[in-house]
């Protein structure tokens, strides 16, 4: 049975900080299908459209009937652990630093045999369920979990390594005065985060709920205005080395499109917060985060951008804001690539309309700040990279795949 992790000790300031290494990342293009599904938290394998044979490892043509019509589909993830071994030797630096490491062969009910990472609570011969997760290199790997949840199972090394679990980690929430930021603070503490740095972009503005939150000894108020380079730099210098997860909730949301707005001032302000703000944060917090990406059990693990589903396609009634979110999405892809060598995961959260004051006129369903916060926590715990929150976002995602032009027409209607 998994032993629960102990609270981390204070960092030894003299000891050398372990530098990040990554597990092997090369994959065939075909195998990237597994990564695509894992990034969304799904378990999919190729299934032959002609003969229904489930394929693994990923193939170009069906290993049974040679059809090239192989689609990635959700398949039964149950199986039996035929054999396992514990590595005490590895050819790869990443694994050498994490030995002993358990792997095994799982015979899936769906057909294939899968070489997988094996959770310690799975005895040989046991029934298991497979999940696919992104590892630190950003590529999908298969992990066999016990059929039913076991106590402290998330503390198993393979799950800890492939997730960004908030447990025992310290989190910076950039705008703690937003409804989303406050819901996140509570949810992350509930998930085991040891410290929340709660950003305050406007110390002159009194917000009752913010003031109440920072009474908690585990929450520390920090002045942080993402539109002010000096502010970002000062805060990063002060707490940057203690942040393991950064959640960027800073957002300037305003109504209005292109033609009817009389000037570009609001647009410029929105870009300053939503796009350049992300850039300032990345410049000042990113390097410290990356440097601590392999720093023991409480290593830096994730960067979370709270975007919007309208980052993918413009909502004309909030056209300028949508554009800023699209720009932020693009920038986040750059950040993701820049952070990949360290293993820091960049998680993009795409909620539908949020249930807060700036969406007063948006009809339901709207995503409550609490639901958003829980989705962020879940994505950290499960290592999901792209998170669609709420019914609007889920449906949007499907329609975007089905018929993007149709979706564009409907959003503009």
């Amino acid at each position: 049975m998994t032993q629960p992790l102990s609270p981390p000790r204070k960092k030894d300031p003299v000891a050398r900080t372990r530098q990040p290494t990554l597990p092997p990342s090369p994959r065939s293009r075909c195998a990237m299908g597994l990564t695509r599904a894992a990034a969304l938290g799904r378990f999919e394998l190729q299934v032959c459209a002609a003969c229904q044979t489930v394929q693994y490892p990923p193939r170009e043509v069906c290993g049974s009937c040679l059809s090239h019509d192989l689609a990635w589909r959700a398949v039964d993830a149950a199986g039996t652990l035929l054999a396992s071994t514990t590595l005490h030797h590895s050819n790869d630096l990443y694994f050498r630093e994490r030995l002993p490491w358990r792997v095994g062969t799982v015979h899936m009910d769906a057909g294939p045999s899968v070489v997988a990472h094996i959770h310690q609570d799975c005895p040989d011969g046991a029934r298991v369920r497979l999940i696919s997760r992104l590892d630190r290199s950003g590529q999908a790997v298969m992990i066999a979990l016990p059929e039913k949840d076991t106590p402290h199972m998330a503390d198993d090394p393979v799950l800890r390594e492939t997730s960004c679990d908030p447990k025992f980690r310290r989190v910076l929430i950039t705008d703690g005065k937003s409804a989303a930021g406050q819901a996140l603070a509570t949810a992350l503490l509930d998930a085991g985060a040891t410290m929340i740095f709660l950003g305050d972009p406007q110390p002159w503005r009194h917000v009752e709920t913010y003031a109440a939150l920072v009474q908690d000894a585990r929450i520390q108020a920090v002045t942080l205005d993402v539109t002010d380079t000096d502010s970002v730099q000062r805060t990063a210098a002060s707490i940057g080395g203690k942040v393991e997860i950064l959640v960027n909730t800073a957002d300037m949301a305003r109504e209005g499109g292109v033609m009817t707005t009389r000037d570009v001032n609001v647009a410029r302000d929105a870009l300053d917060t939503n796009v350049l703000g992300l850039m300032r944060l990345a410049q000042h917090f990113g390097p410290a985060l990356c440097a601590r990406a392999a720093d023991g059990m409480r290593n830096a693990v994730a960067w979370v951008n709270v975007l919007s589903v309208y980052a993918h396609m413009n909502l004309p009634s909030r056209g300028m804001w949508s554009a800023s979110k699209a720009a932020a999405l693009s920038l986040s892809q750059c950040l993701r690539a820049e952070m990949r060598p360290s293993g820091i995961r960049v998680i993009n959260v795409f909620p539908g309309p949020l249930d807060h004051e700036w969406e007063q006129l948006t009809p339901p369903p709207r995503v409550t700040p609490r639901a958003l916060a829980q989705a962020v926590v879940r994505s950290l715990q499960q290592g999901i990279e792209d998170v669609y929150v709420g019914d609007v976002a889920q449906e949007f995602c499907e329609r975007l795949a089905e018929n993007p032009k149709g979706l564009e027409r409907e959003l503009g209607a």
Partner: protein
Amino acid sequence: MTHGRQSYDGVVAVCPVTIPYVRYSTHSAHWWLGRALYELLRASGLQKNDVDGMCVSSFTLAPDTAVGLTQHLGMAPRWLDHIPMGGASGVVALRRATRAVQAGDAEVVACLAGDTNHVDSFRHTVSQFSRFAQDAVYPYGAGGPNASFALLTAHYMAQTGATREDFGKLCIAQRDNALRYAHALMKKPLTLEQYLGARLITAPIHLFDCVMPCAGADAFLVMSADRARALGLPAVRVLSTIERHNAWSQDPIQQRGGWTMDADELYALASRSPQDMDFMQAYDDYPVINMMQIEDLGFCEKGQAPQFVRDHTFTVEGSFPFNTNGGQLSVGQAGAAGGYLGLVEGLRQLTGTAGGTQVAHAQTGLVSGFGMINYDRGLCTAAAILARSEV
């Protein structure tokens, strides 16, 4: 059951040569293969131009293939093959070359296998071994073949009751044999205490279950029996061969190899039975594969190899002489040459040139190959029955 297959009558294998193995080499694979060809010519008395067929196996020849090697060595063969089958390469090269000579497509075929081993080159070979390995094995701990065979070994032990002592007995017997073989890299005897107490690598694989990667080359010639006689070369007849790839793909984990599909034909074509074999040279990158070959090639019932191991000594002078030069476990694994090691030793046994490892009165022997853990199991299996040629 021989499907009307032709015999290999009239064609022989001659001149087994080995370029002595070294742990690490600063040379490239071309050097090792070139040395092997040189030694073949020296041993046979042939000129380079007499060799009109060439068959090459090597993991470290990249970016070249056998084609590039012809120019490097200044050869103009009219028959050329490149066999990337790892541990099955030796037997497969033999069966290809024999048919080529039989059909008249070539008169003399040089079969060469060799690899270099630079410090750290093994890691590169393993990480890029195959597409399936890259996508679906190497990211899982990067344990290389140790991890793959640990899983097969753990499963085999659970199924058959084989113990570490059983595997140890094979390893120790091979080490005893290796002490009689000049080219073996392992020069010291191995005891059961040392075997059992060795460093744990990847459970249940411990240090002495693993082969040592090294550099080296092995080679032999295939030609007509008449030509060999004219050259005065002691020769070995090929009674029968088989090969099979990706057998039993529906088995969820490997517990039998392709030999089981073809063993009956192997013996029928040779008009021999397992009891007629004076020795066996098996592919031994891990001891579990020895046991699988002993079972799958009919020396005992399936799952009974552990008992078979307890009943025999496997030494040169004992019962069931097995991997008489020490095998890869004690000689070293020189990449693709590992697939030739048993074959050249078999040829030495049957040409009476085995020296210290000579099995008395060896007339007939079996050589088996196993290669290429492409994903979760070895895909290539091959075997040959060879016999001393009456001059």
